[in-house]
């Protein structure tokens, strides 16, 4: 299984599976160790996916020659509701 190619949802589902597999008392030591390693990789991947993106707020427009263009915009939260 290529763990790096999983989506966040898939990785989370796999992580739950690992826990379930390890809860099985009849699992052999070898496969338990294998599952454990998989679990470590999966939780690392999930955490990485949660934190890898960079915050960006952009506006999408179409230029006159039909090209899509994104430009950063500065939109603050609503001033009124920010004060809390």
């Amino acid at each position, binding site marked *: 299984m290529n763990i790096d190619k999983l*989506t*966040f*949802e898939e990785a*989370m589902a796999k*992580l*739950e599976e*690992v*826990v379930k597999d*390890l*809860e099985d008392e009849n*699992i052999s*030591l070898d496969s*338990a*160790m294998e*599952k*454990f390693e998989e*679990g*470590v990789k999966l*939780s690392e991947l*999930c*955490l990485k*996916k*949660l*934190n890898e*993106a*960079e*915050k*960006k*707020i*952009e*506006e*999408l*427009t*179409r230029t006159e020659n039909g090209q*899509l263009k*994104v430009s950063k*915009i500065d*939109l*603050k*939260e*609503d001033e009124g*509701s*920010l004060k809390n």
Partner: protein
Amino acid sequence: MDSSIPVGTKIYKVSELNFEIKSEIECAYSNIWIEGEITNFAYPNKKHMYFSLVDENSMIRVAMFENNCKNLIFNIENGLHVYINGYVSIYDKRSEYQIIAYNIIPVKKGSLLLAFEQLKEKLQCIGLFDENIKKPVPLLPSKIGVITSKGGAVIRDIIKILNKRYGNYHLILRNTPVQGSEASKEICKAIDELEEYKADVIIIARGGGSFEDLAPFNDEELAMRIFKCNVPVISGVGHQTDFTICDFVADKRAATPTHAAELAILNKKDETLKINKNSEKFLNLITQKLSSYKRELRSLKERKIFNRPETILNSLWQEYDDMNEDLKNKYKNLIKLNKSKFKITSAKASLINIKRRISSNRVNLNNTFVFLKNNCSFVFTFKKNNLKILLEKTSFYNPANILKRGFSIVKNKKTDKIVKSINDISIDELALILLKDGFIESKVMSKSPGSINER
């Protein structure tokens, strides 16, 4: 009856009369409102509408021409109770009077609401709202497209929620009007562009407003565009109580724009907690598993075979000795038996016969012996290393080796027993002192008690 027409009487031609009546009527009923129920509705080629308007007792024909038909926002259907604004005219060819309608409005509810209900029913019938065709909304979209007005409060509310839930999100705003006649077309275009830009989810949002204000979100074209969109769409239009066609056709309906933002991305804190909980769980599980294996290993290690192999070997030796003894006894008995048999049958038996019997018994014995030996050698192979250690130990304690290291053995010459105590030999008795290369005969001169440690 008089057959002549009085002089000067006006004689109408048919069309002339019709024209005159038409002018009169059209002048008298040039702008009227009439109420009734629609029947016999026909709309050939979607150009002009023809139907009858009826009440309990009477009926009148109604025509509505193309220009006016186009302005109707709801569909005309039989049974609809309506007010019609128009004028009365004559259809000269049949001398039939009828109403030419400018506008039709429903009696029971507003046109917009009726139009909304009709569109909703139509789209529902063709399956646009089916739950099983709705696309799942990703938990962790890398690009969140938002269609709303850049100047409104909605986009700021959405940003606020995203900041709270996730922080490092990527939002792409496509600014559109959210009200007025151009809004739905612009929103369709915005969907095209966000789809092209490969957004992972699209939020269509607008704050609350009147039913008229929300009209752009009840547009059939927009509904079809959302339906065909490859990217999952979340609709957050108006307040909790507002429903729009956009809400029904979207993959997820949010009650408010704020709610739409909540549906668009997972809550990082919750999700991190979930990951950590799972990690903790499997860490605990593997630790448990390992310690149970450790326990098992420890109890194995504590078993005699690993801990004190010589005890097992000793018992095997003992077993071997027992068997050997047993064998010897059997052999003796056999010889005895043969001897007694020989006595009884001495007359008949020949020496050769006896010899043969004995040798055959010997073969048996030998086989048994070899079998035993093999069994023992199996044990030896099995525990070769331990045996080696044992042998080394044994050689350490071998008396010959002890002598090599400078010790000597004293024997009482008379009794030939090892002198372990001063009581084992008397004065003037002869003692043999065994050394590594021979022995010395000596005589006991005197004895004095005491421990070696006291010297």
